[in-house]
C-alpha cells in the first residue's frame, strides 16, 4: 500500500499525505457525499498534492468482493451495495408519512383514556371519528380492541398496544406526561385555568360593591 507513497507530491511545497491516507480520504468522501464525486472534485477537496485517481484504484481493489463496491457512474465515483445483496435492501424503500392530525388526536385519546369507547373518543374530540382513522390505527397495530364496557349496548373499547409503547419509547402508558408536565415542557400555552385567577387576585370594584350591598352591614360590630 504505502510503497508508492513518494511518487505523487510533485514539486509541491507541502508533501502530500501517504497513499494509505489518501485512500482513507477518498473512502470517507465517497461514503458521506450524497452524489457521485468526480476525480476533479476529489482533488479539490483533498490536501494539495494528492492523487485521487490512484487512491481510487487502491480503494476499488480493496472493496472487490465486499458487500459494497466502488462503482463508476458516468465520470464520477460512488459506493453502492453489491448487486447480489439487493434483497437485503427492501427495508430501505419504505416511504414514511406523517400520521394525520385526526389519527394523532384519536391515538392520544386512546393512550390517555384507555380503555375508551368510540363514543367517548368522539365526546372528547368534539367531532365524530371516521371509520378509516380507527382502521388505520388498528392496522398500524398501535391500538387494539380491549374488553367490552359493561354499559348498555356493551360497546367495544380501544387500548394501546406494546407496539405503540415501543414506537414512542415508553415503558408503560402511565409514563405519558400529564397536562401539568406538558405545560412545564412548554408544549402547552400557559393560559390561566378557568376559575383559578379570581381567588388570589385583587378583587374588582364590582365585587366590593356587591359585598357592601349584602350582608356586611348586618354583621358589623
Amino acid at each position: 500500500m504505502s510503497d508508492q507513497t513518494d511518487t505523487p507530491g510533485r514539486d509541491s511545497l507541502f508533501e502530500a499525505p501517504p497513499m494509505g491516507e489518501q485512500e482513507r480520504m477518498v473512502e470517507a468522501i465517497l461514503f458521506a457525499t450524497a452524489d457521485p464525486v468526480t476525480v476533479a472534485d476529489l482533488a479539490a477537496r483533498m490536501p494539495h498534492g494528492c492523487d485521487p485517481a490512484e487512491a481510487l484504484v487502491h480503494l476499488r481493489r480493496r472493496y472487490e468482493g465486499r458487500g459494497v463496491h466502488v462503482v463508476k457512474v458516468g465520470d464520477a465515483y460512488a459506493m453502492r451495495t453489491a448487486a447480489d445483496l439487493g434483497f437485503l435492501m427492501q427495508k430501505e424503500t419504505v416511504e414514511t408519512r406523517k400520521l394525520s392530525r385526526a389519527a394523532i388526536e384519536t391515538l392520544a385519546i386512546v393512550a390517555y383514556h384507555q380503555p375508551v369507547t368510540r363514543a367517548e373518543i368522539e365526546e372528547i374530540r368534539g367531532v365524530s371519528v371516521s371509520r378509516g382513522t380507527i382502521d388505520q390505527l388498528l392496522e398500524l397495530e398501535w391500538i387494539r380492541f380491549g374488553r367490552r364496557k359493561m354499559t348498555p349496548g356493551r360497546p367495544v373499547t380501544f387500548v394501546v398496544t406494546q407496539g405503540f409503547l415501543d414506537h414512542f419509547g415508553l415503558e408503560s402508558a402511565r409514563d405519558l406526561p400529564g397536562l401539568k408536565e406538558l405545560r412545564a415542557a412548554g408544549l402547552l400555552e400557559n393560559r390561566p385555568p378557568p376559575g383559578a385567577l379570581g381567588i388570589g387576585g385583587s378583587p374588582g370594584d364590582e365585587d366590593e360593591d356587591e359585598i357592601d350591598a349584602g350582608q356586611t352591614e348586618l354583621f358589623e360590630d
Partner: protein
Amino acid sequence: MAEEFEEDQVSVAERLAAEALIVDVDGFEGPLDVLLMLSRTQKVDLRRISVLALARQYLAFVEKARALRIELAADYLVMAAWLAFLKSRLLLPPDPTEEGPSGEDLAAHLAFQLERLQAMRDVAARLMARDRLGRDIFARGITEDVTRIRRVKYTATLLDLMQGYARIRTRDEFRPFVMDRDAVFTMEQALERLRGLVGYAPDWTDLSSYLPDGWQSDPMRRRSATASTFAASLELVKEGRVEIRQTDLFAPIQLRQRKDPR
C-alpha cells in the same frame, strides 16, 4: 445587611469582581450562578471554599447593587436573606435549643451545590467539544435507492402525540372567563362573612361549617369557598380576633373567638 466594617474586610479584588458583576447582572442565571462566579475570586478548590467569605461577598454584591439602584430579581434577595441567616449561624456559637441543621451542614450543602454546578458546566463543555455527527463525523450520504418494494410507513413522534392531546384538552379552556366567576368565592367575601360569624363562636367550631349556603356541594364552588374561608380565618388570627387549631395532619381545622382580643 452587611455592616460597614465587614464591607471593609472584603478585599479590593473581590470588590472589583462584585462591581463587574453588577454591570452585567442580566447575564447571570440566578443567584447560584453569581455565587459560583464570586467563588472564583477565592482562587481555591471549590471543596476548600470559605462559605462564610462567600456569603460576605454575595451580601456585599447585593448591597452594592442597592447602592447603585440596580433592581435585583426576587430570588437574588431571597438568596441574600438566606446567606445572612447562614452567616449568623456560622458566626454565633450553636444554640442547643435551636432545631434544624447546623450552619456547617448548610454551608457544606451550598459548597456541594456549587461544586456540582461547576462540574456539570465542565462536562457540558467537554460534551459539546466532542467529535459530533454532522460536523466532524458523517453518516452515509446516499441511503440506498434500490426501489423495489414500496411500502408506506406512518410515523408520529411522542411530541406530535402530546401536542395533539394538549390541543384537544386546551380547547376547553377557551370558554369565556366570566362564566366561571360565579364559582369563585373571593377572600374579601369570606372575610366579611367570617368577621360577622365568629362573634357567635366562643367554642371550637369546624372551619367547614362557615362555608356559605349553596357552596358546599358543587366541588368547584366548595373548593373556592374553602380556600377563601381558610385564608380569611388566618387573616383574623393575625388580627388577634380568633384562634385556630388543627389537631393532626388533615384533621379538621377549628376556629374560636379569642377570649382576650388584642
